[in-house]
């Protein structure tokens, strides 16, 4: 914000860019619908548990393993807990993990990318080799291993997912810095005696963030799927908390041996809908923020 007031030309550029972008985004009917659905989901997940009569953790053996009814729209589990309440509170956890992982990954990616792109040379070379190494690791295997060995907690799961999703951002940011550092406004700042760090953070960063936003949006989808896969393998959160993937894991035996389809159907459906919407929004955002690709 401070930056905008002190550098009028940039503000204008930004203002018109975001206005244009929003206009272009709105032309994507599906992306707008997806954004709406996500909004409703988010609201339900955040507010729902307060409005809903049922508590996600309340055990009631009198009503265990019930198929969906009006009282329990998503049925109940083997402890008689209301599945709808669990899906909502599980959604909160799922989305929190995914968002946190994406933020951590984006931060890491921006820092590495900025350093590599701006300073170049040996640092750039070394950092890019590290990026190569991380790209070549069988990521899901390593994430599984880390969580198995260290134990599952919010921190480990977020860190493990972030550790294998930052590289793309780093490459994008590096590319932006490589081209932006040659631009006039950077030269101008430099001639005014502005320090490197300040240039990197204050001057170039705001202009390099566009691709990060797109890749972060799409990254949420990846993070949700990775977290779900982990939880599905039994490497997720501790009871009584469960993400959607964790609920799917809990439901495996009930679905395939007892035929309690509702136990697995709803959490999985939530994952599908959320990831689908995030992808549509991400695609819309990419087209909106990158006018060159508009025609496609």
């Amino acid at each position, binding site marked *: 914000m401070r930056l905008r007031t002190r550098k009028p030309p940039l503000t204008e550029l930004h203002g018109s860019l975001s206005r244009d972008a929003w206009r272009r985004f709105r032309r994507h009917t599906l992306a707008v619908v997806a954004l709406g659905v996500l909004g409703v989901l988010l609201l339900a997940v955040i507010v729902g548990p307060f409005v809903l009569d049922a508590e996600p953790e309340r055990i009631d053996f009198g009503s265990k393993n019930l198929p969906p009814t009006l009282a329990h729209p998503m049925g109940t589990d083997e402890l008689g807990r209301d599945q709808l309440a669990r899906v909502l509170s599980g959604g909160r956890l799922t989305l929190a993990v995914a968002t946190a992982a994406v933020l951590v990954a984006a931060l890491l990616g921006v820092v590495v990318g900025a350093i590599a792109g701006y300073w170049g040379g040996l640092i750039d070379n070394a950092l890019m080799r590290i990026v190569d190494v991380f790209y*070549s690791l*069988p*990521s899901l295997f390593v994430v599984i291993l880390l969580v198995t060995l260290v134990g599952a907690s919010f921190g480990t799961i977020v860190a493990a997912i972030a550790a294998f999703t930052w590289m793309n951002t780093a490459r994008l940011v590096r590319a932006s810095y490589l081209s932006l550092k040659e631009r006039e406004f950077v030269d101008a700042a430099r001639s005014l005696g502005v320090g490197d760090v300040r240039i990197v953070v204050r001057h170039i960063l705001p202009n390099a963030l566009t691709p990060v936003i797109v890749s972060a949006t799409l990254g949420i989808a990846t993070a949700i799927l990775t977290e779900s896969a982990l939880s599905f393998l039994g490497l997720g959160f501790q009871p009584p908390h469960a993400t959607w993937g964790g609920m799917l894991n809990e439901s495996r035996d009930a679905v395939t041996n007892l035929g309690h389809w509702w136990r697995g159907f709803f959490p999985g459906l939530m994952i599908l809908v959320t990831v689908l919407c995030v992808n549509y929004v991400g695609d819309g955002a990419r087209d909106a923020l990158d006018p060159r690709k508009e025609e496609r």
Partner: protein
Amino acid sequence: MTTFLVKRGLQAIPLLIGISLLLFAMLQMTPGGPLASSEGTGAQNAARVEQIREHYGLDDPLPVQYFNWAGGVATGDWGTSFNTGRPVLTMIWERLPNTLLLTGAAFLLAIAIAVPIGVLAARKQYSWFDYVSSGLSFVGVAMPSFWLALMLLFVFSYSLGWLPSGGLEDLRADHEGFSAVIDRVRHMILPVIVLAAVSTAQLARYVRGAMLDVLQQDYVRTARGSGLRERTVIVGHALRNAAIPVVTVAVLTIPELFLGSVVMETIFAIPGIGRLFVESANLRDYPVLLGILMIGAALVVVANLVADIVYSLLDPRIRYAS
């Protein structure tokens, strides 16, 4: 061309060394030590851990351990499993065929479905077929594969009883010849479909995009304008050129399928590499874990290499340049 290959191949070596260093360090840094301790074994644990530590040289300085291990890997001795006392490489070879069968079948299925759909969708852009296939591929990409697996199991195995719920063969093993093949296919239908689903969706989107790009190129317009049959234009000119990026992406989906096999093998109880990995992680069988991770990493590196090579082979500009 040869120099290019050699150069690209040599670049992979430092990469693999870097990967091995990182993996090795990672295993050492995890808390709790490299040996699983288990429930109900009480007093036996401490003594056993000591013995095994000494036997496997786990008290040597880390660099010594790394060089011992890396030297072994280079010469084909990947160490022995803490759990079974058998060579790691043997254990991996026993499981690898199942995983390859699964991922190979899924790969072929994905290509067989994705390419025609992508081409057709691109040729009839904005048709109902395009909309439906694009929509489906969006859903496919967003599909949590394990959920699809669970639901298919519920429908085809639990409710209808048409397909087996897991394993790779009917264990009463009276099957021979043709009926053994049928038996194997029946066991593979669900896991292969699930494994292929996401890749099919991704590839179809990619094929469509690549075809749209190519169809707008001048030479395709010229070809069409010069009265060539549509079929010849699509298959002979457009598809050939669209194939360049598509093949690259297709090759890169192989490691993804390989990773996806962890989840599939767990759900469908298939004794492959993925299950071996999960089992070994639970037992903290470090030599086996390192072995599988290195194979996974090598697969990614080789896939990238192959993608590069294929790209250079298919792209006329690169071919002329060298």
